[in-house]
């Protein structure tokens, strides 16, 4: 009787409380990565794989929403001063680092001080950190960050690179040891890291958001061979595989245990023209020639034949998912007749010869795309001399100077705005930039300081029209991306910039 008297109420209380408390993280989620992350310290994470793999360990002050908008992170709210230069961040209280340290304003100033150290300047996120001019700790949970001039993208830079670092731990162990055993405030803690093989994370029990994470263990497996990744998702040895090509999708679609996740990628593919270096003084400087080339290429045909229709042709660098996209601009039609008329008008009735670089195997079917462009331009009398080059050599400074004067390339943009690819490819400061036009530089300068989102959208629209009439590129296409998950995965949604958050991803059973 005594047993029943004590045991029953205890049981009832336990059952009731189980229904009211938050669900504990459970199960193991295994994600296959196509390459080894460059680092587990997010400041050195320089590719999309590394960013996705390190992100679970850290929290930023703000983060991207699925539409590219800026959402609160460790900063619950913020205000921007009237002159657009000072941001006051109000930090979340009660947040702990994995080692028990408290997160506060001092941890935010550490990011900036650490990032600005000259010897760290090749850090991937140096730009993000250096975009702030000064930082003032107002109180334990308020910081004021000042930029030297109004910066339209300051909050994006904060989302990209301002991840909380534990000041005491970093000071105690130094950067080298920190890189081997990183500590953040993120939903997962690093448990074991075998570089090139596997990364094992465990749910952080004191994470500030009681609803996250959903899984107890998160494991990344590095499988560089695409065939093996395909096999591993079919056997259920991994739960998520990224970067599938369309052939893989056809194979997996028939598998009842696997779900295909499709999303449009914010990466434009294009053929660049040069008007500097070996492009100076060539036919490419004539706007009519560049328009003719845009008319000559059958981009619809390329998307249909080489990507089974899983992509969209584009009218410029500002694509439909970007801020300021103007739907009235339709991709150049495939019209070889008009192209030849334009060439004649430009003074090249018999066409001309020109060199074009192609990054061998750098992207899906890119070699075939290069050959298609060569064929289409050949049809209007432009004789393209194709130069294939392996990817490591292709993106070197020396090669950018020597290739072309036309070359095939692609560029992504991280947060729903085309600014980064426009700036990177059209501002003379960067060696990737091989087209110089003062009107474009001026327009980009205006966008860069337009803190107001609507005025920025209007500026993008104007620039898009200019770039449509004065194309520095043959605009080609954007592609849909495919990933696959096993049926037990819930809540997985990759972002258009090819990275993902794991906070809300769970597994059934």
């Amino acid at each position, binding site marked *: 009787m005594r047993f029943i008297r004590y045991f029953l109420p205890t049981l009832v209380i336990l059952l009731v409380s189980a229904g009211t408390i938050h669900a504990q993280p459970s199960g193991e989620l295994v994600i296959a990565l196509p*390459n*080894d992350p*460059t*680092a587990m310290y997010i400041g*050195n994470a*320089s590719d999309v794989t590394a960013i996705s793999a390190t992100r679970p360990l850290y929290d930023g002050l703000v983060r991207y929403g699925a539409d590219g908008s800026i959402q609160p992170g460790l900063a619950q709210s913020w205000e921007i001063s009237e002159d657009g230069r000072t941001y006051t961040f109000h930090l979340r209280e009660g947040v702990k680092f994995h080692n028990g340290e408290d997160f506060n304003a001092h941890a935010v100033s550490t990011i900036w001080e650490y990032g600005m150290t*000259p*010897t760290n*300047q*090749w850090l*991937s*996120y*140096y*730009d993000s950190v250096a975009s702030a001019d000064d930082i003032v700790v107002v109180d334990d949970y308020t910081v004021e960050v000042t930029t030297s001039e109004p910066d339209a993208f300051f909050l994006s830079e904060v989302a990209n690179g301002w991840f909380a670092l534990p000041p005491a731990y970093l000071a105690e162990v130094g950067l*080298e040891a920190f*890189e*081997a055993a990183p500590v953040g405030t993120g939903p997962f803690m690093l448990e074991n890291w*075998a*570089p*090139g*093989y*596997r990364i094992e994370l465990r749910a952080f029990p004191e994470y500030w958001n009681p609803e996250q994470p959903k899984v107890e263990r998160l494991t990344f*497996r*590095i*499988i*560089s*061979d695409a*065939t*093996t990744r395909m*096999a*591993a998702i*079919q*056997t259920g*040895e991994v739960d998520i595989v990224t970067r599938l090509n369309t052939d893989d999708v056809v194979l997996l679609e028939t598998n009842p245990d696997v779900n295909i996740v499709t999303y449009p990628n914010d990466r434009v593919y294009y053929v660049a023209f040069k008007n500097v270096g070996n492009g100076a003084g060539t036919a490419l400087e004539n706007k009519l020639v560049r328009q003719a080339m845009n008319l000559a290429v059958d981009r619809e045909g390329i998307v249909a034949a080489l990507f089974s229709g899983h992509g969209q042709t584009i009218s410029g660098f500002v694509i439909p998912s970007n801020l300021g996209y103007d739907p009235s601009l339709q991709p150049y039609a495939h019209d070889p007749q008009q192209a030849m008329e334009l060439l004649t008008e430009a003074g090249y009735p018999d066409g001309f010869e020109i060199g074009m670089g192609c990054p061998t195997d750098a992207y899906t079917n890119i070699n075939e795309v290069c050959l298609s462009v060569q064929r289409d331009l050949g049809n209007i009398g432009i004789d393209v001399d194709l130069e294939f080059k*392996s*990817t*490591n*050599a292709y*993106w*070197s*400074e*020396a090669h950018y100077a020597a290739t072309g004067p036309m070359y095939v390339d692609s560029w992504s943009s991280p947060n729903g705005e085309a600014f*980064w690819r426009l*700036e*990177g490819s059209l501002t003379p*400061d*960067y*060696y*990737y930039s091989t087209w110089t036009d003062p009107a474009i530089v001026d327009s980009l300068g205006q966008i860069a300081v337009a803190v107001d989102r609507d005025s920025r959208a209007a500026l993008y629209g104007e620039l898009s029209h200019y770039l449509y009439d004065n194309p520095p590129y043959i605009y080609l296409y954007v592609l849909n991306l495919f990933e696959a998950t096993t049926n037990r995965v819930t809540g997985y949604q990759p972002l258009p910039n090819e990275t993902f958050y794991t906070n809300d991803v769970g597994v059934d059973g």
Partner: protein
Amino acid sequence: MLVLVFFTVRLTGDPVGLMVARNATPEQREAFRVAHGFDRPLAEQFVGYLGDALRGDLGRSLRLHLPNMELIMQRLPATMELALAALLLSLAIAVPLGIISGVFPGSPLDLLARLIGLAGQTIPSFWLAMILILVFAVNLRLFPTFGRDSLQHLVLPAVALSVASMGQMVRLLRSAVLEITREDYIRTARAKGVSEIVITLRHVTPNALIPLVSVVGVNFTYMLGGSVYIETIFAWPGLGTLLNDAFNDSDFPLVQAITIFIAAFAISLNLLTDIAYDLIDPRARQR
């Protein structure tokens, strides 16, 4: 070797373009170059590298920010495990099969041996690896697809890596046995009335195994260095995948360190093979 490795890896690309963010300013690029010595003339870089290598210092990885030797030592056990397993598997099948097929030429077993010999030398190991994954991992679910978590994980990569060596050993043993069985001393033994089993075990086998010693040494080196494909396909965390990643990321110091390490290992192994050969075969000592 040092010269070849140093200059060929530099032909493959510029690490700055890969290590530094794409929007980095020229100053940031320069800071990276200076910090890693890429701003110095090639000849000067080479002398520095040579000096370090001779002192046993193989440098630090650009990408992983760790000493290369530490990375190599982390990965070496996995590669050794795979290479040893593949070698043992080759020997376990090739030795009995090669001898039997030599002793009974034209028999069904001989046919099998010749088939393995031919297949081993003609089927590309990376293709075989994919077929093994499709059949035994995806369709039959008998073995895991990738990784190195248990003994089971060793089976498919070891089979894929062993087949080439197995084929070569079978052919070598078969021809050695065929040759030896025509020797005078075998005929003498037969004339003395020694049984065929005793002849095979006491006279033919030990002599046929002698040329195998040098092949074992060479094949083991090949497995250590040549397992890049197999390790990559099976995501086996050895030197091969490390080399593959380092190469893809233009991590020059690491590529150099691994190739030099494997070369030094191969030279030592060849020396050991030669010494073993002398110990086993008295004729080699007399020459």
